[in-house]
């Protein structure tokens, strides 16, 4: 019997097919033709082909916009939002609009032409996540912005385009995105009821049940969520309660980088190098400008986390249009496959 499961954060129902559950072999990973390393603007030695760098890590020193870096942050070559200008909020009859102001940055995670972050040394993942954190702290200073989304696209199906060089991106927006708002509202409602954080409760329940947990380190928990929309969808949750990603501790950052490496390697092994998207949900900017509404108890009720989505099924307008998903692989089975995956350097905490 298929099951209908409800996402406890935002209340979305998902159909989980339990009868003819799909196994990893039922999915075919597809990759388009890549740009060769010679023409890749993100490789070492091609620094001149990108906009001027915003931030870089050069362990042995060296000049800006030259080689010697391990991680490099640049403005996007094709920004979806522009950094200059005012928001110019206005209405047109029943409609509301504003100018497309925002920041769009790219975090190049390696000087070498490595497409999949699964193949990066864990130190690079660590440095890239830390660089992201530093950029987020800086972007929060801009009073025009309310949110910054960290995300990552790997493979052309997942929107990575033809440049197949491992990177993540940041987009700062002048509005709080709908998805984040829904989570804020859902977790606040739970907190009002129980005076506990929903994600803390969820993590405790998962650690007890152990059927959907994939990795459990001292600081970080990775699991296949109960109401997964997609086969092999994953969540990465810090065990210590916190609403802001940028306030994570050095120990948490180390664990997080290790967990990312583990999960990406396991996905690669189990699903034959699938395209994927990853994204971070953290509390909106509040800083110096106190804002009304759901911001009041946010530090107690919201809990930052990453979502990792392998792109295996054809998601089309239907899902976007209805907000309704059919998942052919129960998360319990997905978690089992991922736990049992054979990879080169397995972590002890599986």
């Amino acid at each position, binding site marked *: 019997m298929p099951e209908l499961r409800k996402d406890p954060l935002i209340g979305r129902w998902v159909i989980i097919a339990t009868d003819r559950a799909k196994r990893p072999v039922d999915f075919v990973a597809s990759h388009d033709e890549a740009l060769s390393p010679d023409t890749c603007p993100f490789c070492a030695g091609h620094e001149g082909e990108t906009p001027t760098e915003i931030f870089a890590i050069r362990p042995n020193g060296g000049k800006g916009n030259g080689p010697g870096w391990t991680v490099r942050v640049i403005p996007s070559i094709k920004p979806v939002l522009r950094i200059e200008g005012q928001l110019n909020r206005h209405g047109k009859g029943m409609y509301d609009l504003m100018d497309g102001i925002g920041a769009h940055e790219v975090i190049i995670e390696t000087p070498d032409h490595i497409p999949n972050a699964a193949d990066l040394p864990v130190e690079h993942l660590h440095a890239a996540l830390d660089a992201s954190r530093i950029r987020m702290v800086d972007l929060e200073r801009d009073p025009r912005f309310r949110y910054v989304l960290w995300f990552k696209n790997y493979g052309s199906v997942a929107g990575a385009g033809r440049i197949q060089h491992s990177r993540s991106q940041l987009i700062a927006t002048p509005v709080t995105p709908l998805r984040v708002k829904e989570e804020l509202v859902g977790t606040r409602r739970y907190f009002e009821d129980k005076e506990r954080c929903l994600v803390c*409760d969820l993590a405790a329940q998962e650690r007890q049940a152990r059927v959907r947990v994939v990795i459990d380190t001292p600081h970080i928990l990775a699991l296949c969520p109960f109401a997964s929309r997609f086969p092999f969808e994953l969540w990465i949750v810090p065990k210590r309660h916190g609403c802001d990603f940028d306030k994570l501790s050095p120990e948490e950052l180390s664990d997080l980088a290790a967990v990312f490496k583990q999960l990406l390697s396991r996905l690669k092994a189990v699903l034959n190098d699938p395209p994927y998207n990853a994204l971070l949900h953290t509390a909106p900017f509040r800083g110096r400008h106190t804002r009304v509404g759901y911001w009041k108890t946010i530090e107690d009720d919201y809990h930052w986390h990453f979502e990792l989505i392998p792109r295996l099924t054809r998601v089309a307008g239907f899902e976007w249009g209805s907000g309704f998903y059919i998942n052919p692989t129960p998360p319990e089975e997905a978690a089992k496959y991922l736990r049992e995956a054979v990879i080169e350097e397995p972590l002890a905490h599986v």
Partner: protein
Amino acid sequence: MSELRRDPIIGRWNIIEADDPAGPEAFEVETHANSGGKCPFCFGNEGMTPPEIYVVRPPGGAANGPGWSLRVVANKFPALKIEGDLDRQGMGVYDWCNGVGAHEVIVETPDHNRQMADLSIAELTEVVKAFKARSLDLRGDKRLKYTLIFKNFGLSAGASLEHTHSQLIALPIVPKRVQEELRGAERYFEFRERCPYCDMLRHELQEHERVICENRSFVAICPFMSSFPFELWVLPKEHGADFAQLAPEPAGDFARILKETLLRLRTALRDPSYNFIIHSAPIERQAREEYHWHLELIPKLTKIAGFEWGTGFYINPTSPEQAATLLRDIQIG
């Protein structure tokens, strides 16, 4: 310069490229090849599907045999099953219930080589009638709360069979997007005591910038806050929350505008894959003053990536004004 535009009903913001919009040539062309093999929706293969639930067949023909012009059957691989109780349960932070519901397929024609856009007005009117009849019939089932009617055309839009068909899923819950629309419409109505969709229609018909085509009962527009390039909505001019209450005359007009819109889309975008969904009120007794049923069509042209997943807002490279102009001006046969 791009613009951020807000959906006046659900409050979602989208990023829309207004200055340098991407035209049809910016998107890859997908071919819809005939893959061959035995098609369960073709004449003579009726035995390959579950028994028919609804059919248009001249009098005298035997059920589940040839001679039909439209056929509704249960989905052979249903996402939900019709037997059983919901058995709602909870454990800790989680809630779930059994996947009870209906999943039906509307085979629009026995002819394998025609698309929905190729059907005659009379044939399309039968399709609309079938949508209506099946929605009304499933309403008797107390477990069900919502009927979703949709179509996937083309492989990249999720159609696993190429023979033209639409689908119906009846659910024991109201899907999230619909709930958002209902809530947003309620909020709008509370303030103004007007239906937001009626307001939108009036505004669009006055400005005419985003109107693609219209007839006596329907208007097709590219919505102001389109999430996707060439996204289009078909709205009934007369207020009505429930698609299944569509009267016979407007049903013909709906078929007419559907055909015209599909033809315009096919010509302008070189036969794109697409999805459409009929957004209608949940199964309930009273009529809603604030909700307005409509069809939303999304051509499958762009790829959804991490940003869209994370934010729930979309980057649309083609402004709806540009899309509407193109679809309006294109010459169709």
